[in-house]
């Protein structure tokens, strides 16, 4: 993969790397401590919050990339990608939620919506490529 060319892209890669690094550490570390019964009370709350907050950092990185992107065409591609991802994640979550309500599909943890959203970004890039001839930023 080529190195990011613009300062905005470099900042995005840095922010996303920090967020995903924090996510991995807090998820693995938190699961280890929890599974071994090593934490309880307020510390358990903090431990449970950290992986989710790390993902918030990833959303922040993407939002800031949209704001800081100077190239108007690439910025539009990013916005379309994000809208596509949002529509995809909310649509799947809505349909799955009602199927689940009627007992037709298994229960899925809510944090999978975030994973769906990131998957939707990839689909959004494909949508951009098909409709505008350019995928934009490859996440």
């Amino acid at each position: 993969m080529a190195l990011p060319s613009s300062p905005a892209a470099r900042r995005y890669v840095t922010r996303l790397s920090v967020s995903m690094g924090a996510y991995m550490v807090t998820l693995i570390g938190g699961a280890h401590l929890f599974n071994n019964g090593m934490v309880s009370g307020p510390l358990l709350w903090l431990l449970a919050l950290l992986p989710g907050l790390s993902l918030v950092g990833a959303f922040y990185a993407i939002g800031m990339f949209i704001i800081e992107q100077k190239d108007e065409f690439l910025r539009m591609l990013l916005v379309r990608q994000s809208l596509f991802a949002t529509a995809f994640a909310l649509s799947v979550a809505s349909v799955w939620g009602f199927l689940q309500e009627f007992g037709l599909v298994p229960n899925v943890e809510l944090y999978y919506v975030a994973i769906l959203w990131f998957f939707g970004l990839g689909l959004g890039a494909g949508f951009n490529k098909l409709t505008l001839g350019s995928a934009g930023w490859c996440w």
Partner: protein
Amino acid sequence: MKNRLRVLRAEREWSQQALADKLEVSRQSVNAIETGKYDPSLPLAFRIADLFGLPIEEIFLRD
């Protein structure tokens, strides 16, 4: 919106990347504008017009 960007660029023997560098935008932006897939903002349209030394309406044409 139609435009004459590709012709104007070819007359000057500029590559898409060279034009993108002069306009301080990405090559994808130049390609999207040339192929009519993206209409530039008014500030970018003015930058393009200034670069070619032409009025905007001689570069961008009504459909």
